[in-house]
């Protein structure tokens, strides 16, 4: 059963002339991992701040866990954990002390706090470093400590703002797996903002493409690509030798192929429907060597790129 946990309705935020968020309507369901995807300055952070009641919307409403964030930020902040991008810690306190401080700000007693902090440090893999000063932590460790810091209040929703920024690839992979596991095991709803397409693609159930303060499209990766690429849904990439003009001509004439792009031996065939078999037969029959042929799945990369291409032209 889908139960909405974050509901934004017609949310708008203006800074003077500049509109940072423009009529955003979005629903995130309980237990899902939602990726808010957009370039820098798209209004992702502003949206997140409004969800936490740290910024006031110009118009529209924000409900998190059924509570109005603008009017009752304290209640919302009790249920929502927020990890800002480039999270900071008190550097002359140890990782454990930093966690304990947050726990006690959330009204836990010292005993409870210590118990929970130890458990979480174990979970995020910082047990050995727990008693080291937070100032000596690496970027990846800080981010993991941040995750523990967010979880110590046992939130229903966690909001992560660019959580993977500046971590090495292996660290990113581990971090994302950790988030995924958390969401799965504890049923926590995760809202993740990022401009890294591949990472979002890896773990998110649904994605919202957010540019210039507006939600362009939302849905899972598959339906997103369908939404945005209704004209040319399939691209087949192939490498042939030699790629003669005659062959390209033949490919163009296949029923369902709209255009062919050539880059040396590599060809990209844009089709209206899946005609992979016909294309491969055509290539083989015209005595060219077929070196490579794949049907390209639209990743977020293309979705993204396509959007900016479109915007550049208009």
């Amino acid at each position, binding site marked *: 059963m889908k139960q909405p946990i974050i509901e934004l309705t017609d949310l708008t935020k203006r800074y003077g002339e500049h509109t940072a968020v423009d009529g955003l309507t979005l629903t995130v369901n309980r237990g899902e991992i939602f990726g808010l995807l957009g370039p820098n300055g798209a209004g992702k952070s502003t949206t997140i701040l409004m969800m936490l009641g*740290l910024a006031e919307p110009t118009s529209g409403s924000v409900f998190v866990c059924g509570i109005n964030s603008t009017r009752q930020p304290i*209640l919302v902040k009790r249920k929502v954990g927020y990890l800002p991008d*480039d999270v*900071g810690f*008190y550097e002359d306190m140890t990782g454990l002390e930093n966690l304990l401080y947050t726990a006690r*700000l959330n009204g836990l007693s010292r*005993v409870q706090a210590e118990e929970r902090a130890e458990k979480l440090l174990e979970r995020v893999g910082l047990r050995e470093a727990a008693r080291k000063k937070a100032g000596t932590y690496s970027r990846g460790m800080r981010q993991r400590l941040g995750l523990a810091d967010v979880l110590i209040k046992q939130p229903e929703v966690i909001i992560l703002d660019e959580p993977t920024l500046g971590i090495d690839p292996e660290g990113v992979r581990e971090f994302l797996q950790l988030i995924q596991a958390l969401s799965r095991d504890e049923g926590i709803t995760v809202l993740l903002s990022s401009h890294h397409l591949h990472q979002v693609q890896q773990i998110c159930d649904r994605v919202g493409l957010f540019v210039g303060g507006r939600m362009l499209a939302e849905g899972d990766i598959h339906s997103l690509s369908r939404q945005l690429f209704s004209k040319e849904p399939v691209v087949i990439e192939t490498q042939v030798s030699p790629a003669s003009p005659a062959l390209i001509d033949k490919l163009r004439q296949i029923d369902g192929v709209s255009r062919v792009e050539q880059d040396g031996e590599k060809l990209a065939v844009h089709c209206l429907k899946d005609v992979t078999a016909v294309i491969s037969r055509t290539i083989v029959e015209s005595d060219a060597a077929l070196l490579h042929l794949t049907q390209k799945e639209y990743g977020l990369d293309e979705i993204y790129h396509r959007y900016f291409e479109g915007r550049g032209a208009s």
Partner: protein
Amino acid sequence: MSKAWELFRGIAGRLDRSAAAGQRDTKQQHPFWVIVQKEVADHVHSWRFNILLLLMMLTCIGSLYTAMMSIRDAVPADESLKSFLFLKLFTVSDGTLPAFITFIGFLGPLLGIGLGFDAINSERNKGTLSRVLSQPLHRDYVLNAKFVAALIVISVMFFALGFLVMGLGLLAIGIPPTPEEFWRMIVFLLLAICYVAFWLNLAILFSVRFRQPATSALASIAVWIFFSVFFSMIVKLIATATFPKEAVDAGSLLSHQQFVQYLLRLSPSQLFTEATTTMLTPSVRSLGPLTMEQIYGAIPSPLPLGQSLLLIWPHVTGLVAATMVCFGLSYVMFMRQEIRSR
């Protein structure tokens, strides 16, 4: 009262964890006092505070020493006057080192600025502010807690220093203070705390306004130097410029004198100096000019405590008001600011 007790226990607990463990460990605490505790602990552990403390201790002992050396000359020959000898520990000096009140007047601002100049902006720059504010607490808790924590540290320090001077003085001169002298000293310490609180708030105001701790430190120090060095010069210039040239009668001289004094009192350090001098030197009868008619018939005796208090009441009000203005401004500014990470 119960809050103060809770706070006291909180601080004691933070400073000495092994003591009184047990019940406190399973108790929930209000987030405000959690922040206050952390801030107090931060101050006490910081190099900055310890250096300032050391400086204060040194000046305190230094001024006490000179006071001891010269207190013999300060004993009035006329025994009919109540001498308030004990209070002289704070005020007399043989000229080599300034007296205790002068030192406090000079170093107090430095202390306030030192504890407040990076209150908000360093948290902002470290990225901890947005993390703390995303916890379930009201935004003003952070600002209020920082102020309260610094004030607690300052109060404890001043009372400790003040009682230290009293105790050493008691040992050295062997004359116990009278109750009135004791209360005068307490009022003096409270005044000193108010005065430092003003500078603390000014520094916090700058720390909310300016992003870089260095900028806010420089701005606060600039204000401090302006008031302690240049302000009196400027007032002197104005005084000479506006001095009545023709028809010099007593009335116009008096009003001019008053005008200059009002100008001088715009400076918090002037307010502090006048107030503390009145408190610690009971023979001060008035802070403005007195005409012959007013003096005529007055008995040359020191003022009682109540009258001295009455005399400095406007000064205290002024100091507290200036503190409030700074605090109010920083409060409004802080509440309106958007908290972004870094």
